[in-house]
């Protein structure tokens, strides 16, 4: 921050810029206000029970979000179960193992993954992941693992929670991986050298120096990845099967909050309470994203100075 006395021209300049700043504050409050305002009828009518009511019945005007919350939760958690080890591996590979002359190029590849639009991921899921699940994975699980809860296959259709989770996992990988990489890079080289000079292997350094040093940053990355996964819409709509049932297996179909909004919001606006219930669904997403990002941002601030990496602004 530069400290200087202002003169007239600067006053004018500052005034104009502050109008722009007012603009971004206005945008923030617009989105929050609109969502609060239009969800208010549903919030006041259904109360907190909205969160655990399972029925979603527009003709009878009974609205509960439990089914969609469950679907959202399942997709997010399963996606993270895939994405976390993958991202940690990628971050560790790029920062600790990868030959220096390849590091830049390899990092760009992971950043490209972040830039791929979600509709493209969706198409890839429909044309690649779904057939693969249907032809190979589901029959395999059906014949070998049908006794394990959550892994039963009733029909080989490919679409469902798992298909959506796999694709969402790839969408959050660049976020977690790049933050992992940045956090590992923040470990002082001289500390790592100290361990290497005592006869530590790379793995010793990772286990005993790098990860203990940077785990907070990695948590932050996971939290931001969670935020991204919760709100992911277009790819999920194309893959999850879009049926309002709480899935009993990861191979089952389901529905997420974002998917139900994408599919039905334009019809819902015909009925005020229907529309309001849908906006309340959006309110859940908004609140989760705000909370998750506040926490994630705070965690990251301490590790990598809160600098969001390039992979944060992926393609919609």
């Amino acid at each position, binding site marked *: 921050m530069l400290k200087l006395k202002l003169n007239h021209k600067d006053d004018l300049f500052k005034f104009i810029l502050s109008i722009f700043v007012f603009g971004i504050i206005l945008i923030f409050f617009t989105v929050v206000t609109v969502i609060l305002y239009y969800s208010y009828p549903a919030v006041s009518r259904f109360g907190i029970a909205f969160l655990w009511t399972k029925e979603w019945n527009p003709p009878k005007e009974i609205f509960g979000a439990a089914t969609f919350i469950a679907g959202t939760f399942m997709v997010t958690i399963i996606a993270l179960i895939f994405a976390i080890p993958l991202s940690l591996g990628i971050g560790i590979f790029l920062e600790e193992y990868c030959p220096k*002359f390849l590091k830049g190029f390899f990092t760009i590849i992971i950043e490209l993954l972040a830039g791929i639009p979600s509709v493209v991921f969706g198409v890839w899921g429909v044309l690649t992941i779904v057939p693969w699940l249907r032809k190979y994975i589901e029959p395999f699980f059906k014949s070998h693992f049908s006794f394990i809860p959550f892994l039963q296959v009733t029909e080989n259709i490919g679409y469902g929670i798992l298909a959506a989770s796999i694709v969402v996992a790839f969408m959050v990988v660049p976020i977690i991986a790049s933050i992992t990489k940045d956090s590992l890079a923040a470990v*002082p080289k*001289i500390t790592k*050298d100290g*361990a290497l*000079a*005592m*006869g530590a292997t790379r793995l010793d350094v990772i286990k005993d120096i790098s990860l203990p040093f940077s785990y907070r940053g990695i948590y932050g990355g996971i939290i931001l990845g969670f935020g991204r996964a919760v709100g992911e819409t277009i790819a999920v709509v194309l893959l999850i099967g879009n049926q309002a049932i709480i899935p009993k297996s990861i191979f089952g179909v389901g529905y997420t909050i974002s998917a139900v909004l994408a599919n039905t919001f334009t019809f819902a606006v015909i009925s005020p309470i229907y529309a309001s219930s849908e906006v309340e669904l959006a309110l859940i997403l908004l609140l989760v994203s705000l909370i998750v990002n506040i926490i994630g941002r705070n965690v990251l601030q301490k590790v990598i100075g809160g600098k969001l990496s390039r992979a944060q602004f992926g393609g919609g």
Partner: protein
Amino acid sequence: MTDINKNNIDNITENNKDEIKIEVKNLNFNYGDYHLLKDINLFFKKNSVCTILGPSGCGKSSFLRTLNRMNDYTEGSKLTGEVLLDGKNIYSKSVDVVELRRNVGMVFQSPNPFPKTIFENVAFGLKIHGIKNKQFIEERVEKCLKYAGLFDEVKDKLHKNAFSLSGGQQQRLCIARAIATNPSVLLMDEPTAYLDPAATATILDLIADFKKFYTIIIVSHNIQQAGRISDYSGFFLDGELIEFSKSGDFFTRPKDKRTENFITNRF
């Protein structure tokens, strides 16, 4: 015996082979195309202290890092020649780098404790070499902290984070850490560069004391210090070893004009 041309070294090797800890033969070292260390030949005697002097950027740190193969991690670097430790080339294929680094300890320019407790810092070397016996570890940690003259200061806070120590204490902790695996060689890269005079004096006393166990090679900027603690001194300039001899001769009767300039300018 002030000259260290190749013949001289050969003579020494034949006569007192057992007294030589490390012998460097025709060492050349490149960072990519940059030919830094040029045909270095010298030896370090067992249980002696040797100081490496030279202006900034002349390759002292790089030289030190070739002695425990830390240069392995510098991409694009290239090394030719031999470094014989107890008569065995440390760059030969059969050498176990992990064991080499246990045997050749290193202390860095600025204190670099691990983000762990004081106890864990000293125990680190034991842990990564597969020692699990708790009692052995505890005894060894205490012993090494005592050797490093740190035990009395930290005995009540062994399980506190190492960063809670002062700079001088941290550096002594790093020394304790380095000797925990009982190396026979200690490499020290300007170990007192960032310390105040009192902390520096403590560490110099340690070094003088350690001579009875270890062969110590120390990079220093401080010529007075070097004269005081070292048995041998070497002078590097632009990656060349200009002079290497007994400290007495080195400081009073330097053979090379450039050495003399370096010494006198600083005194």
